[in-house]
């Protein structure tokens, strides 16, 4: 482990209450407690927002803006307010819980000052709020739609916006039972078979914006007149689009690069090609319905997604529902699953990063062999290899089975029968350590990996914090911040493991962090095995018999350290009679999305071939980026 080098004078400590008191003393008129039922933090008046944000960052030490999102209070239900509200969760990188502050604005002319000058990490998040909620941020350097296209009609996350195939505000839909005469949604939709528009549809709203407008907005341009001479090699300034259909982008992701010869002078990520408005779907769903939907975010590590979401809702349930917190065994099993997922995620990340470096699929397939064993265990326990849908409010779906058992029948022509604990023990004590050592042996000293990885994709410590990077990207830049240690949850406080930090801030450092984290995960898993033994027989499913959980009024932000970084879920329950089982607001703080904020910074000055690898070293999954 590397020695932490935080200058003494920068370290600000003290409780959240102290910080709030100081903030209120500094801005007596403009800061007030958020005293709504089940809410926490402060409300800052919008004209002082930027000044207060700077004070919160510089004086109070909340240097890491984890989450910024908007909520639409429509003046319905228990909330009589009628306004849009921006919610910020700021943390100290030295650890501790969140300072939550909010700013409110009118729905008709929604404008707020941008906090981007204070935390650059707010960049994409504010663009998202502008895109989906229609809040204009004054002072934002590049306020454009990010997930939808320019010219999209309306702001879909507003509560009064209705999507195509709209049926009802909340699930369950009344048409399904008791008179559920089936129809296919596409047959009833006004759009019919996509090409025959009814006369009353205004086609002009589907206007397209030409690409050059977009380049202009990003401040990019083609310049073939002005020839630059690099030691005898003459280059032009060009724009190159990489993606959305490009194998190196790990999905449908697009990077617009302004290049000077081979050198990248500017890079802007363009995303949203896989956007399905996960959050809108989540607000139509009941709280329970959302669990399988979270699987589809970062589909490599669905167990971790489940964990973050159920933790957020459990915080709300603890406010007063009839609810028992998960048993000890349930927590042990959750951590077991999540750590196995982390190993899968890091194997995958390293493997595909090597793909990007040119080691085409040989390493990935070695790692996939190990991943298969873990997925076999997931399948036998949760029922599915990737879409695990395993965790429930107050527990997990089911205890791990006695045996990993496949029976012979007309569908299975092969059978299997292993003792689960034996399988796990052997996997954790022998098989995975062996293969991680192999990864180490295979790659760490490899000349190509070192030559391509060292010093490329550099992100400084200050920038990593400022841009709200998370996970291995943050820790690879020398910031000792891991939610499992810094703001512990579940049974992590009693487990013995180290945070893996590297100070170099390049791709190679991120690789080393991932490698180290797999070893630390194994340390945790080894400690879990005896815990699984002695909690054997304890219930894990006590609370999941209710199919519609009524969730008390309030807000909650649940976050976990997922393989890709901090995954947060911001959930608001409005708790009015009509929608007690449905979240009023459901927001995902997606590490794959926010980690892309510094992509342009890391790539500028590098070569085109490095951009591919830098993207690989951030490790994104488009299901989570685009949501």
């Amino acid at each position: 482990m590397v020695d932490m080098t935080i200058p003494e004078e920068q370290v600000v400590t003290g409780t959240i209450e102290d910080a709030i008191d100081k903030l209120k003393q500094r801005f007596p008129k403009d800061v007030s407690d958020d005293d709504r039922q089940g809410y926490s933090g402060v409300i800052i008046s919008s004209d002082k927002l930027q000044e207060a944000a700077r004070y919160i960052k510089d004086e109070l030490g909340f240097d890491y803006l984890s989450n910024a999102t908007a909520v639409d209070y429509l003046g319905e239900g228990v909330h009589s307010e009628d306004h849009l509200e921006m919610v910020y969760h700021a943390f100290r990188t030295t650890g501790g819980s969140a300072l939550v502050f909010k700013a409110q604005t009118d729905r008709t002319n929604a404008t707020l000052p941008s906090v981007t000058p204070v935390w650059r990490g707010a960049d994409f998040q504010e663009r998202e709020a502008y895109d989906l909620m229609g809040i204009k941020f004054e002072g934002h350097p590049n306020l454009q739609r990010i997930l939808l296209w320019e010219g999209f009609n309306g702001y879909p996350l507003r509560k009064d916006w209705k999507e195509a195939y709209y049926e009802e505000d909340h699930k369950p839909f009344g048409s399904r039972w008791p008179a559920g005469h089936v129809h296919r949604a596409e047959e009833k939709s006004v759009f019919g078979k996509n090409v025959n528009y009814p006369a009353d549809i205004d086609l002009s709203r589907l206007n397209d914006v030409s690409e050059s407008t977009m380049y202009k907005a990003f401040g990019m341009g083609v310049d073939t007149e002005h020839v630059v001479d690099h030691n005898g090699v003459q280059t032009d300034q060009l724009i190159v689009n990489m993606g959305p259909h490009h194998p190196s982008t790990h999905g449908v992701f697009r990077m617009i690069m302004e290049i000077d010869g081979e050198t990248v002078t500017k890079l802007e990520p363009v995303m949203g090609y896989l956007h399905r408005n996960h959050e809108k779907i989540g607000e139509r769903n009941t709280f329970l319905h959302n669990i399988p939907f979270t699987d589809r975010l970062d589909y490599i590590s669905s167990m971790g997604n489940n964990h973050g979401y159920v933790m957020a809702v459990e915080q709300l349930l603890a406010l007063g529902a009839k609810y028992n917190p998960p048993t000890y065994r349930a927590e042990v099993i959750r951590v077991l699953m999540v750590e196995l997922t982390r190993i899968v995620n890091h194997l995958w990340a390293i493997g595909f990063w090597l793909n990007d470096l040119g080691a085409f699929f040989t390493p990935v397939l070695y790692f996939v062999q190990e991943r298969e064993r873990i997925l076999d265990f997931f399948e036998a326990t949760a029922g599915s290899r990737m879409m695990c849908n395993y965790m429930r409010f107050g527990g997990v779906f089911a205890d791990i089975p006695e045996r990993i058992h496949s029976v012979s029948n007309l569908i299975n022509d092969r059978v299997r029968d292993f003792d689960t604990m034996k399988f796990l023990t052997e996997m954790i004590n022998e098989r995975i350590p062996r293969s991680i050592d192999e990864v180490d042996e295979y790659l760490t000293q490899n000349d190509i990996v070192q030559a391509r990885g060292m010093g490329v994709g550099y992100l400084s410590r200050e920038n990593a914090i400022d841009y709200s990077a998370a996970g291995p990207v943050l820790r690879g830049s020398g910031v000792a911040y891991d939610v499992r240690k810094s703001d512990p949850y579940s049974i992590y406080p009693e487990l013995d493991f180290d945070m893996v930090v590297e100070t170099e801030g390049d791709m190679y450092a991120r690789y080393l962090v991932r490698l180290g984290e797999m070893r630390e995960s194994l340390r945790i898993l080894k400690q879990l095995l005896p815990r699984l033994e002695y909690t054997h027989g304890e219930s894990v499913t006590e609370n999941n018999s209710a199919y519609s959980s009524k969730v008390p009024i309030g807000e909650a932000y649940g976050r976990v350290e997922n393989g890709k970084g901090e995954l947060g879920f911001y959930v608001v329950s409005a708790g009015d009679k009509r929608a007690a089982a449905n979240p009023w607001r459901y927001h995902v703080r997606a590490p794959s999305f926010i980690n892309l904020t510094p992509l342009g910074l890391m790539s500028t000055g590098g070569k085109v071939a490095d951009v591919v690898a830098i993207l690989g070293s951030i490790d994104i999954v488009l299901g989570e980026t685009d949501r």
Partner: protein
Amino acid sequence: MNGVGFAKGMWVTLRHFLETYVDDVRYGFRKYAPDLDNFETRQGVDAQGAFTVQYPDEKVAVPERFRFVPFLVVENYDHEERPGKDWCTSCGICAKVCPPQCIWIVRSNDPETGRPVPEPEAFFIDIDICMNCGFCAEFCPFDAIKMDHDYELASYDRTTNHIFDKDKLSKEFRYWNTIAPTRAVEEAEARGGWEHKDVQKEARRGGSTRDKKADAARAEKREAVRARKEAAAAPKAEAPAAEAAPAKEEPAAEAPWNDDEEQKRKRREAALRRKAARAAKRAEDGDS
């Protein structure tokens, strides 16, 4: 480093390559032969080297909890009292708990009284929308809807074949026992017997009172069933209460679940013979 790391990396690649063939030698180049029992080893934690399952000629074994598009449990077609009866009571919980809302249920009503009858008139699942989450099976209070193991549902035209109706969804209870024997036993223990929850409640209550007409109908049915039973199985005189206890040897695991009338008749006769034999055995045990 002068290529040391490079050589090390190539050595790992070579080792993987060799390991694959070491196994081939060990299994005498017959590792794909379906009759060999080496599959279990090759799919376990001890496996080494690459092992490709030759789908669709062979398939990876799916565990009991594996979930795919659900099916509806109906009573075995050779069941003595309620052959082919839906376990579903059309309570609608699965439709409510379904995240993508792909379940559609038409509840049946008594044509005379207009009251709801606890069985579905129609039941649809749009398999294009189903996300295989398993909530319907998890929250069904009657164990009437279960996740299937049959994942080969692709077809050439999604618009005509992908809404499954009750006929297509219904599978015998026996089928559930063959794909998930361990869980079937656990569930039967939780229900208190192999039979449907309502049947057991009925048995415990001994026929109750809510609706006189229904009561009369039930009594009539019971009478008919009793008569039929007496006619069919003469030695059956002892302890019908033992029926409720989960008997692990009861489901015939190898029996198919969908076959023609002739087969059904044969199986029904076999079931009756087995039942008679059991009753005789119980009588014998009781004596000794």
